[in-house]
């Protein structure tokens, strides 16, 4: 046993890793962050098509039959062109009717016939057991080889030691991955992700061994092909076959890629979105191309190197092992092991489900002693899986050593091809009937068995070998491999005859025994599934027929026979809800009919369509009286409408669609009305933002991110339907260094002013912690466009891809964003108006105070003069004293006039009635003059006033206004920085001149630096400094009128520097 210890260890470690990945995928799915619902994962999982036959057998096939191996992969590539119409239709049927396999689809289409399902299941089990046996054979052989290939481990002897443990391992793996639940219609995210990983492993392993062989072992592709064996040793171009064989193999492989149970399971049952089919239709062929690139070079190179052609099926593994590369050998072994396990698990899962649904459950229904099986659907599937694997192992032991991988695989492909006419005919031909389908499948199956299975049995000694030469009863025209004297290779021969017989029987019997009217309607629903819509709630207002409570009880009773009671109750409630029924309500005739259909669909998910149909009919969910009432209701409708049943169905569909649309519109209108009411509740910007971020939950989105632009960086708010994830998101927002500057969707929405839909929501630039807290399937970012610049963005996130990507959701989100933008704009404008009113009141107080200031001394002087006149003392008053009184009065009048001038300037500037009188002037001279005028004032304030200016800076400016600018700046510096030095500097270049006024005052906080340039605003309103607060506003407006700019640089405690830049040319007049 020691020699198998290492392989066992490696396999266990590898499988453990796969389990861990699958468990991780299941956990992610449970948390709503699915990995499996991804187009790339879906496409890679389809790579389960590449089995050990691909991994090992293709090289053997190429060594023996040249390029013929390519048909197995070129066929699916060509057929992928029609997947959008075929696979998508099957996915839609699966979503609507909960089918779980091809027999289930056939049963659904053909009168929910258990006979059709049983025949198809039998064909698939018989046809695919050899294919599973082929995988077992390869796994046993390669395990023996990688374990050292000693005599006891050489195939087929190795099967005695390795077979049963391998079988047990595969059964466990199948149960854990695929058969853990009783509802096979539920997706298996862990299985899908594990299959995708296995696909990557086998592709990487094959490319690794191919690259090593071509460039590491041989001298490149040219060397491989130039030294390829010639003559007898060379592989035949098409293995001695003609173009007919090539075409037949293409057809059979193209069909198999869809009809093999594992392919159907991954492509249809595990499909999360119809749109993923679009990606798979090119990515899957690309995968097949890559995995085949090195097949022919490996075959030719190995033959040229003298490898025995008999061992060609394991060249891929034996070449690196024989060349002394054990690590590569182990990697290749794991690749092949992945190919084998993936195929066996999914195929066995699918076959076990079929056997359970179409054999065990119907048998339990038919034979009362077996009724207990109904309560053990899951265990029945496990037993079926064991049966399938045991049969495969038995086949492998009996026939394995005698047949190559390719021949066995193609026999199975030809078997599943027999389902193609019934399936494709059922999907696209209205005339296809149940009898035709059964006739086609049975005839094709019989011809397949005669042309492909009988020769195998004859060569194995189970039947007389003379049969292959003389034919039955000596009739040579009936020789199994040369019917009617047509001789070609066995697979092509079988494909031609089975298809002829199958299609002829299917079409002829369908025409002779057509389906009934009821099934015709069902057939139409299946065929038109891509354009039709599911039945919704029945139209209300009809007469009551039955109690919803009673029907619920019956539904629970029926469902409870197959699934646990709690699940049955939940399913029954869901069925009633889909019928538009509420607890305690009475059901109309149409609702009762709808309920029956819904229960049948729910049950089909667990036991298959045919068995579900039979069970519902038996259960008496609808009594004969109710059935009559339903018939009467439909007849009344028909009579009243004077329409045919087809027309009625169309009208009902139309009414339901219209009803749904109106209900949805009404719901949306209610939502928007609620939004408006909530937003109207406050005019505070902060409160509005707080309300707004929660509005879309849960009606429109699962999470919301509101980004509002403002000075000092954007303000971000987050809301999530799940409190825990909202906390995680908030923690991400609060993290140091958090920024959304590089979030591509936000940037794009702001730049274009249009919504941005991202699918999946993996936009570049989003901080990873925030992204992790948000739903990842779809993101819709809308700009919030108010008056002028966008106010910010509203990002909505959905767990489901279709949540935000429909036209309806987009329109609703845009309307929400529009209303939100209006509310935010209103809040902003209201805030500004409030600030303006506050500023006005403050201004009135300041202006009153400032205007009153000069009036007091003026009144005093006037009163003094009046007293002097009244007493007759005026003439006796000394002249100097009188001049002093008049001078004081003139000063106060001048001060009043100056204040009034300031106010007039503000009025002119704000009403745009402001004109410049531009003429050449010397800025340096103007600065010096203004500074000189302020020297006395500076001295009184203890300020050292210094000027640094070139001799002359000439430009075209309004001298009076420039003086005003300088007076304001220098005056402010003296007012706000008493006792500190003030420096006025003039600089110039060819294009512009700059005035810098620097003081060492208390400085201005950054938050106030924009505000002080507004009218009636002051840097320190309570610092005891007088003034109307218009100086800097006047400065800014005058400078702007000259085409210049004014800026301030300041920090509290470090003084301030005001810089005025003026172009030297002639400016525009304001």
């Amino acid at each position, binding site marked *: 046993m020691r020699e198998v210890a290492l392989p066992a260890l490696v396999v266990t470690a590898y499988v453990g890793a796969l389990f861990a990945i699958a468990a991780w995928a299941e956990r992610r799915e449970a948390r709503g962050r699915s990995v499996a619902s991804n187009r790339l994962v879906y496409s890679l999982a389809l790579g389960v098509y590449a089995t050990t036959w691909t991994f090992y057998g293709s090289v053997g096939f190429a060594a023996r039959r040249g390029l013929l191996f*390519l048909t197995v992969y070129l066929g699916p590539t060509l057929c992928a*062109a029609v997947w959008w119409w075929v696979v998508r239709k099957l996915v839609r049927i699966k979503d609507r009717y909960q089918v779980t396999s091809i027999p289930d689809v056939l049963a659904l289409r053909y009168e929910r016939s258990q006979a059709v399902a049983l025949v198809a299941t039998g064909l698939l089990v018989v046809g695919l057991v050899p294919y599973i046996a082929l995988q077992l054979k390869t796994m046993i052989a390669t395990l023996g080889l990688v374990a050292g290939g000693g005599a006891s481990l050489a195939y087929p002897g190795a099967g005695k030691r390795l077979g049963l443990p391998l079988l047990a391992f595969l059964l466990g793996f199948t149960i854990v991955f695929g058969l853990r639940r009783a509802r096979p219609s539920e997706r298996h995210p862990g299985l899908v992700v594990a299959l995708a990983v296995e696909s990557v492993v086998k592709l990487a392993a094959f490319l690794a061994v191919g690259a090593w062989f071509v460039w590491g072992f041989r001298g490149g592709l040219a060397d491989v092909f130039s030294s390829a064996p010639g003559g007898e040793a060379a592989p035949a*171009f098409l293995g001695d076959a003609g173009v007919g064989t090539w075409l037949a193999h293409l057809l059979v492989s193209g069909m198999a890629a869809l009809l093999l149970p594992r392919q159907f399971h991954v492509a249809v049952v595990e499909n999360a979105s119809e749109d993923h089919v679009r990606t798979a239709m090119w990515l899957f062929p690309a995968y097949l191309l890559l995995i085949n690139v090195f097949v022919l070079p490996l075959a030719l190179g190995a033959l040229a190197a003298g490898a025995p052609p008999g061992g060609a099926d394991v060249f891929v593994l034996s070449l690196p092992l024989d060349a002394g590369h054990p690590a590569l050998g182990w990697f290749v072994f794991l690749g092949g092991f992945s190919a084998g396990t993936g195929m066996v698990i999914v195929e066995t899962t699918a076959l076990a489900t079929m056997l359970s649904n179409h054999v065990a459950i119907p048998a339990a229904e038919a034979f009362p002693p077996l009724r207990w099986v109904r309560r053990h659907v899951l265990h029945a599937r496990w037993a079926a899986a064991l049966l399938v694997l045991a049969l495969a192992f038995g086949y492998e032991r009996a026939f394995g050593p005698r047949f190559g991988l390719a021949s066995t695989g193609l026999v199975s492909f030809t078997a599943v091809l027999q389902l193609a006419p019934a399936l494709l005919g059922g999907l696209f031909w209205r005339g296809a009937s149940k009898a035709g389908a059964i006739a086609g499948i049975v005839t094709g199956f019989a011809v397949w068995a005669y042309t492909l299975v009988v020769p195998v049995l004859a060569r194995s000694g189970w039947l007389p070998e003379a049969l292959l030469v003389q034919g039955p009863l000596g009739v040579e025209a009936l020789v199994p491999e040369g019917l009617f004297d047509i001789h070609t290779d066995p697979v092509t021969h079988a494909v031609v005859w089975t298809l002829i017989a199958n299609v002829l029987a299917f079409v002829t019997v369908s025409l002779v025994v057509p389906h009934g009217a009821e099934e015709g309607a069902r057939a139409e629903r299946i065929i038109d599934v891509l354009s039709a819509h599911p039945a919704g709630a029945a139209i209300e207002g009809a007469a009551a027929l039955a109690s919803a409570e009673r029907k619920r009880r019956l539904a629970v009773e029926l469902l409870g026979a197959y699934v646990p009671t709690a699940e049955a109750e939940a399913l029954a409630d869901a069925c009633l809800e889909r019928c538009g029924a509420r607890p305690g309500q009475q059901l109309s005739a149409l609702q009762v009919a709808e309920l029956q259909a819904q229960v049948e669909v729910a049950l089909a998910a667990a036991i298959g369509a045919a068995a579900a149909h039979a069970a519902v009919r038996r259960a008496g969910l609808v009594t004969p009286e109710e059935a009559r009432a339903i018939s009467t209701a439909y007849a009344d409708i028909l009579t009243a409408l004077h329409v045919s049943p087809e027309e009625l169905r169309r009208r009902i569909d139309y009414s339901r669609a219209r009803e749904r649309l109106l209900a949805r519109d009404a719901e949306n209108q209610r939502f928007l009305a609620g939004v408006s009411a909530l937003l109207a509740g406050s005019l505070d910007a902060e409160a509005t933002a707080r309300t707004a971020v929660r509005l879309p939950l849960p009606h429109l989105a699962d999470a919301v991110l509101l980004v509002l632009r403002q000075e000092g960086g954007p303000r971000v708010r987050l809301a999530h339907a799940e409190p825990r994830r909202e906390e995680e998101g908030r923690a991400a927002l609060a993290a140091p260094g958090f920024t959304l500057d590089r979030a591509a969707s936000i940037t794009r929405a702001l730049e274009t002013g249009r919504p941005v839909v991202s699918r999946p929501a993996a936009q570049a630039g989003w901080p990873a912690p925030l992204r992790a807290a948000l739903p990842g399937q779809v993101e819709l970012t809308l700009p919030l466009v108010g008056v002028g610049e966008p106010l910010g963005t509203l990002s909505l996130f959905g767990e489901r891809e279709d949540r935000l990507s429909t036209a309806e959701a987009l329109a609703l989100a845009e309307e929400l964003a529009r209303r939100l933008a209006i509310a935010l704009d209103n809040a902003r404008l209201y805030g500004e108006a409030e600030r303006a009113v506050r500023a006005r009141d403050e201004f009135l107080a300041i202006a009153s105070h400032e205007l009153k200031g000069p009036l007091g001394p003026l009144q005093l002087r006037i009163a003094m003069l009046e007293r002097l006149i009244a007493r007759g003392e005026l003439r006796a008053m000394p002249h100097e004293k009188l001049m002093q009184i008049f001078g004081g009065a003139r000063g106060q009048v001048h001060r009043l006039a100056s204040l009034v001038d300031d106010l007039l300037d503000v009025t002119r500037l704000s009403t745009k009635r402001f004109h410049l009188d531009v003429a050449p002037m010397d800025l340096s001279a103007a600065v010096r003059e203004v500074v000189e005028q302020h020297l006395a004032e500076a001295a009184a304030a203890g300020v050292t006033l210094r000027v640094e200016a070139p001799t002359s800076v000439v430009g075209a400016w309004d001298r009076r206004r420039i003086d005003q600018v300088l007076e304001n700046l220098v005056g402010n510096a003296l007012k706000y920085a008493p006792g500190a030095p003030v420096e006025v500097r003039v600089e110039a270049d060819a294009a512009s001149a700059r005035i810098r006024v620097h003081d060492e005052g208390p400085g201005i906080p950054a938050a106030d630096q924009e505000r002080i340039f507004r009218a009636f605003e002051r840097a320190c309103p309570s610092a005891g400094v007088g003034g109307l607060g218009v100086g800097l506003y006047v400065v800014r407006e005058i400078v702007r009128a000259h085409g210049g700019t004014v800026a301030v640089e300041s920090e509290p405690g470090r003084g301030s520097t005001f810089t005025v830049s003026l172009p030297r040319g002639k400016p525009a007049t304001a």
Partner: protein
Amino acid sequence: MSLAQRDEERSSGAREPARAWAVLILVLGLLLVTWPFVRTPPLPLAPAYAHLLGAWLGGVGALAAMARALRARRPRGPPDA
């Protein structure tokens, strides 16, 4: 008519030419991959292999282009980011 129905009709309208493309890819692909076996004299093994791989690659490209064209048109708004 529901919004979903309108979407379906709009996209199915866009997909009519896609059916013609699908048939074209199928027929042209079949001709391309069959050509090495019907020409006289037959191609040697290596050139035939190269031809088939090239045709395969072209087929994958054509399928990818068709898949892209099949993407349902959005009624408004920008394309997927």
